C-alpha cells in the first residue's frame, strides 16, 4: 500500500475567484483514515484556509456530507483505502449553492423542514399526571426506520428532481413527515396533508430512488414517499365518495 493518496479538493473562495477550481493535496493513506481525516490533515498541516463542515466523526451529526468521486457521501464514513491508489475527488454536495470551498448553503432545507411539522402534533394534550403516551413495539416499528434521519442532506444531493426543481419539498423532509404520520402518538396527519399533496410535495417525486441509495442511515425516503402517495390517493378517493365525511 502506498504511503499517501491524492485528494483533489474543490476550492471556491468568492473573495479570490469567480468560479470553483480544484486543488490537489497529498495526504497520508492510513487504513483507519476516512476522507474527513484527510481533509483535517490538509487543514492542520497543508492549508489552513480550507473550509468544510464536520463535527462528530461518527455518522450521527450529519454535517460532513460531500461529493466523493461523484457520489454523495458522509466523509467521516468513507474510507480513503477504498479509493486507493486514488486520486479522490472531494466536492461540495451537489444541488446546493456553494458558499466557500466545500461548504454549501443549507438554508433551503432548513426552511422546508419545519413546514412538514416534524414533531408530534396532538389535538389535545393529556395532563402529565396521566403519564406517558404508551406504544407497542409494533407501533414503534412502523416509523422507527424513518426516525433514523440525521438531516445530512445526501438525499437532496442525490435527487435529480430537487436539482431540476428547487421548490420540491425533497426526500428527507417528506420522509420525516411520514415518520410522524406513522407514529401512533401523533394526530397531525391532517395538518401535513395539504403540504404533502401539493404538486411540490409527494407528487413532485418521480421515484428515481437515488435518495434511498444515498442514505447513510437506511431511512428509505423513496419508500416513505411512495407509501404516502398511496395513502394520499386513498384519502382523495374517500373525499370524493364521502364529501361530507371526516378527512
Amino acid at each position, binding site marked *: 500500500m502506498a504511503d499517501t493518496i491524492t485528494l483533489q479538493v474543490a476550492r471556491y473562495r468568492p473573495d479570490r475567484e469567480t468560479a470553483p477550481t480544484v486543488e490537489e493535496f497529498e495526504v497520508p493513506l492510513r487504513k483507519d483514515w476516512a476522507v474527513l481525516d484527510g481533509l483535517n490533515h490538509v487543514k492542520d498541516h497543508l492549508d489552513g484556509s480550507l473550509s468544510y463542515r464536520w463535527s462528530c466523526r461518527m455518522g450521527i451529526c450529519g454535517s460532513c456530507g460531500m461529493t466523493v468521486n*461523484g457520489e454523495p457521501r458522509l466523509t467521516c464514513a468513507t474510507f480513503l483505502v477504498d479509493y486507493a491508489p486514488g486520486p479522490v475527488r472531494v466536492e461540495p454536495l451537489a444541488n446546493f449553492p456553494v458558499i466557500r470551498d466545500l461548504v454549501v448553503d443549507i438554508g433551503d432545507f432548513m426552511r422546508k423542514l419545519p413546514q412538514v411539522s416534524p414533531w408530534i402534533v396532538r389535538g389535545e394534550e393529556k395532563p402529565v399526571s396521566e403519564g406517558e403516551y404508551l406504544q407497542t413495539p*409494533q407501533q414503534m*416499528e412502523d416509523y422507527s426506520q424513518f426516525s433514523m434521519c440525521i438531516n445530512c442532506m445526501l438525499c437532496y444531493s442525490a435527487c*435529480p428532481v430537487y*436539482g*431540476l426543481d428547487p421548490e420540491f419539498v425533497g426526500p428527507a423532509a417528506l420522509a420525516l413527515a411520514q415518520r410522524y404520520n406513522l407514529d401512533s402518538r401523533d394526530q397531525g396527519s391532517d395538518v401535513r396533508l395539504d403540504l404533502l399533496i401539493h404538486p411540490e410535495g409527494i407528487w413532485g417525486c*418521480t*421515484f*428515481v*430512488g*437515488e435518495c*434511498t*441509495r444515498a442514505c447513510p442511515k437506511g431511512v*428509505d425516503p*423513496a*419508500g416513505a414517499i*411512495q*407509501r404516502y*402517495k*398511496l395513502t394520499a390517493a386513498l384519502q382523495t378517493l374517500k373525499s370524493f365518495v364521502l364529501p361530507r365525511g371526516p378527512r
Partner: protein
Amino acid sequence: MSTFWWIRRRSYAFFVLRELSAVFVAWSVVFLLLLVRAVARGEAEYRSYLDWAATPWVVLLNVVTVAFLVLHAITWFNLTPAAMVVRLRGRRVPPAAIAAGAYVGWLVVSAVVVWLVVTP
C-alpha cells in the same frame, strides 16, 4: 442542471429509460386499439392491418416496444414493495415476498392470455 443531466450516472439513465417506457406502453395500447378497429370493420380491413403490422418498420417498432414493456413491468414490480407495506398476522410481509407475489400474478395472467390466444 444541463439537459443531459441523466447521462452522468447509470442509475439516472436507467430511470429516464424507465420513464420513457411509458411512451411505448401507450403505443402498444394504440396498436391493440387499431387491431380492434380493424376487426370491427370486417375481414378486408383486418387483412390489411395484418399486412401493415408485418411491414419491417412496424415489426422493428414493436420489437423495441416489447423490450420497453418488459423493462416497464419488471421495474414496476420491483418498486411495488417500496410503496406497499402488507401485514399478515401482525408481521410485516418481507419486501421480496410482495415482489414475488406480483411476479406470480403476472405469470398467471400471461398464462391465461396465452391459453385464450392459443386454444382454437
